[in-house]
């Protein structure tokens, strides 16, 4: 179910009155939110709701276990009944594979109960670690199977062929559940936080399942943390007209980014990357610029819609973007881009690997490893790995040269400062766009074709770039204003008449020049 679809509008219109009616009763409210979230997810493919239920059950039990609390029979029974019950309900909507789904879920639940029994026989200290392994293993195992199995198989086959072995091509028929990576990372973060003692494993199974499946941020983040979101499910959230309207305005702005900018420039990028071998220098540059805009507006737009929706319900989700294309260094870019992922990678991977606590060389290694895995998180392809490696490498080079420190010492308010900051910004943007070529390319050959086309420097004319300027021009002006004023939510700034005019214009623009409906969000695939 896409946020920018009539189906979602209908869903929300049905959801909201009931939500308002039950919002003061925490149990009912969370149950309603959970049901709505599972319907939201199941609309795409009901069988994968089972996956959400399984992970919720595992993470619910594991969080208690890693925190050193007892995992009672009652807890296990609740988890088992919840998982099997959800599966049976899902089975009603899927027809042919229903029995198979129930069988496999029951088997999984049985395996989980055996594992919990085995963990229960270990010493108290080891139990915590085993629970951690169980949670991480279940989450990453499911992610590995659905997202990386075919990538792994293809890579092994390629490697065998490279050393002279003749092997037949073999792939598994696997559908990647949308937003699985987001869901898994959110689940893992809670278990690890409980293990580290950062948060307590509070909340009922319903609360945990709702935290993991909260529909505004279920399929493309932001990847929330338990410390921030779970307490919100444990309190009655105040909803005022002011809060609702600011949420609605944020949603509208996100929709503008998605349907006016991202979806309208997408065909330019698609065309250039599909015909990279025949592209001129100008069209290749336009294609890369178009994708640079598309990926940002697509993802930032989704994040804003998610945050806006959540705010309409009285919930606060973390900001996921902070004007990333104003970054002057790669590390600043990652502080502003997909903040929930970059902080996740920092807290659960980089810090776990040792961070910068063991000298420069270890820090560079950790940085490279973190970015490599961050690249792989985005997609099961070597182009994503190279994208991650590229970002890791440029961050290492910037750190070796201490560019961040140098730039922070230069004052902006002088001609020299302006030139230095401008040059730094331009360099970073060029590097980021080079990275996007690998990110968007279907193969290394495709990326190479784009680079060679860019270096031909031919075919430049105003008409090549006019559509980009037309669609992105207003957005760039708004972002310059946001940067200068420090006000992130542009439709909520200034006197009434200004806000009102801006909102009406944004709504009219959405109504008038939206791209044809139905284009999915890029990050749904991650």
């Amino acid at each position: 179910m896409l946020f920018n679809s009539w189906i979602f509008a209908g869903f929300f219109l049905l959801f909201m009155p009931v939500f308002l009616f039950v919002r003061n009763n925490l149990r009912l409210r969370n149950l309603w939110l959970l049901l709505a979230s599972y319907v939201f997810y199941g609309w795409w493919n009901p069988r994968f709701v089972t996956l959400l239920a399984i992970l919720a059950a595992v993470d619910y039990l594991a969080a208690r276990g890693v925190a050193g609390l007892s995992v009672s029979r009652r807890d296990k029974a609740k988890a088992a009944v919840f998982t099997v019950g959800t599966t049976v309900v899902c089975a009603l909507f899927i027809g042919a594979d229903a029995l198979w789904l129930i069988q496999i879920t029951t088997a999984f639940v049985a395996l989980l109960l055996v594992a919990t029994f085995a963990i229960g026989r270990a010493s108290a200290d080891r139990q915590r670690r085993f629970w951690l392994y169980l949670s991480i293993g279940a989450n990453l195992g499911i992610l590995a199977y659905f997202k990386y199995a075919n990538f792994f198989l293809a890579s092994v086959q390629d490697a065998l062929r490279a050393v002279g072995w003749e092997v037949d091509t073999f792939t598994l028929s696997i559908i990647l559940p949308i937003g699985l990576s987001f869901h898994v990372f959110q689940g893992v973060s809670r278990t690890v936080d409980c293990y580290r003692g950062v948060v307590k494993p509070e909340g009922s199974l319903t609360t945990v399942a709702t935290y993991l499946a909260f529909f505004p941020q279920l399929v493309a983040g932001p990847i929330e943390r338990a410390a921030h979101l779970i307490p919100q499910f444990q309190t009655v959230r105040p909803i005022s007209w002011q809060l609702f309207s600011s949420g609605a305005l944020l949603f509208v702005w996100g929709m503008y980014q998605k349907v006016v900018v991202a979806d309208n420039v997408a065909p330019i990028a698609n065309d250039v990357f599909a015909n990279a071998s025949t592209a001129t220098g100008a069209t290749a540059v336009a294609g890369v610029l178009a994708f640079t805009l598309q990926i940002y507006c697509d993802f930032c737009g989704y994040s804003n819609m998610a945050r806006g929706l959540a705010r309409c319900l009285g919930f606060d989700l973390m900001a996921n973007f902070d004007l990333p294309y104003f970054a002057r260094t790669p590390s600043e870019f990652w502080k502003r881009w997909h903040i929930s992922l970059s902080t996740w990678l920092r807290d659960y991977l980089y810090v776990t690997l040792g961070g910068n606590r063991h000298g420069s060389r270890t820090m560079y290694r950790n940085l490279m490893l973190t970015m490599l895995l961050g690249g792989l998180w985005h997609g099961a392809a070597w182009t994503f790995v190279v994208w991650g490696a590229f970002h890791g490498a440029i961050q290492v080079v910037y750190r070796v040269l201490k560019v961040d420190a140098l730039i922070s010492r230069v004052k902006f308010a002088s001609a020299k400062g302006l030139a230095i900051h401008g040059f730094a910004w331009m360099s970073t943007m060029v590097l980021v766009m080079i990275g996007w070529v690998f990110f968007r390319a279907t193969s290394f050959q495709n990326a190479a074709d784009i680079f060679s086309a860019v270096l031909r420097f031919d075919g430049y004319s105003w008409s090549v770039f006019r559509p980009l300027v037309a669609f992105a021009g207003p957005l760039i002006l708004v972002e310059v204003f946001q940067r200068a004023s420090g006000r992130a939510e542009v439709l909520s700034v200034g006197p009434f008449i200004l806000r009102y005019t801006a909102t009406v214009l944004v709504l009219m623009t959405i109504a008038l020049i939206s791209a044809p409906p139905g284009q999915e969000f890029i990050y749904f695939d991650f």
Partner: protein
Amino acid sequence: MTSRRLAMRSVGRIAAMFGLAIYTFVVCEFAVRVLKPQPLMPRYITGTAWGVRGNIPNAKYWHSTAEVRVEYRINAQGMRADRAISLSKPVGTCRVAMFGDSFFMGYELDLRDTVASQIETMLEENGYKAEVLNFSVSGFGTAEMLRTYDAYARGFSPDAVIFQWHSSDLDDNVRAGLYKIRNDRAIATGSSYLPSVAIQDVLMKLSPYRWLSDNSHLYSWLREKVAVLVKKMLVVRSDAKAVGDERASRPRPRNGRGREAKVVPHSVVLAAELLRLANESVIADGRSFLVVDIPKSRGRTAFESDWDRLPHSSVEEVEVLHAAEVFRPFAGPDTKLYYEEGHHHLTPLAARALASAVATRLIDRGSMTGCESKLPPT
């Protein structure tokens, strides 16, 4: 607080709301004009005594698009013409009655460039004294054309009757609900089809509304959006009503995956049967009948018609002129046969080519016999 103060405050609030509404309109109008300028094509439509839509008699209005600005003058009989037409046919003059939607009505064409005017001119040039009576109304389908012929145009004693046919007629006929299929034949079932006419009649009496419909891009954009939505809803309702019809109510065969296999849709059967009925009705009156199939434009050089979908058994007796065949010799990447910015109607070049083909057909089949002018052909 005194009641006077309360009253003042209420008045102030109402004034502020009114002001805000005006301001919102201005901002929205500005947005539409800048981002997506609309063709201004108001429709001056009202109801007729025979239960279908007609042009507002004696109306005068303009259409403006990025490509043309056209004046429309409707005569007292509701035809697009700059003269009144008497009911009785002048001696020695042949009459051609034309029925169609906005294509034959001549949208985006000056009066002299419409297919109707061009046919009249060409017949005169070929030595025939002829009057072409244009009964076309924007939005008409075959059902409304047939009803207009039966109830009104027949009285003008035409010698030849021309029906325009276009793919949009398939849905228009179903929506109208004037005819249904019984025992494989179209029979009249509905007494009237006047969508939104009552509202339109009231609104057209208000000068601010007429000003909006003539000048506002925002209004034009909204009207198109609403029209598309209403049309969709009306088709759904009509299809639901058609369940009682014999062909439409037959159980639809299903293919292996449970989806409905392709069947001849109700709209296609109805369209074909209406043409058969019109043909029979006109020929029974001793007049000649011709259908002109206007294709959809698919770029400057490709045309697409749904005529071939009509069951052959129903339309085999109907004489048809396929405009696509007329257009093809003229088509080229640099030649515009359909306007591209407004509502994609015919250009003067296409109208002239079509009129020439129709006039030639009328002469060749003898429909103009008896009205040869004494003057030699020019």
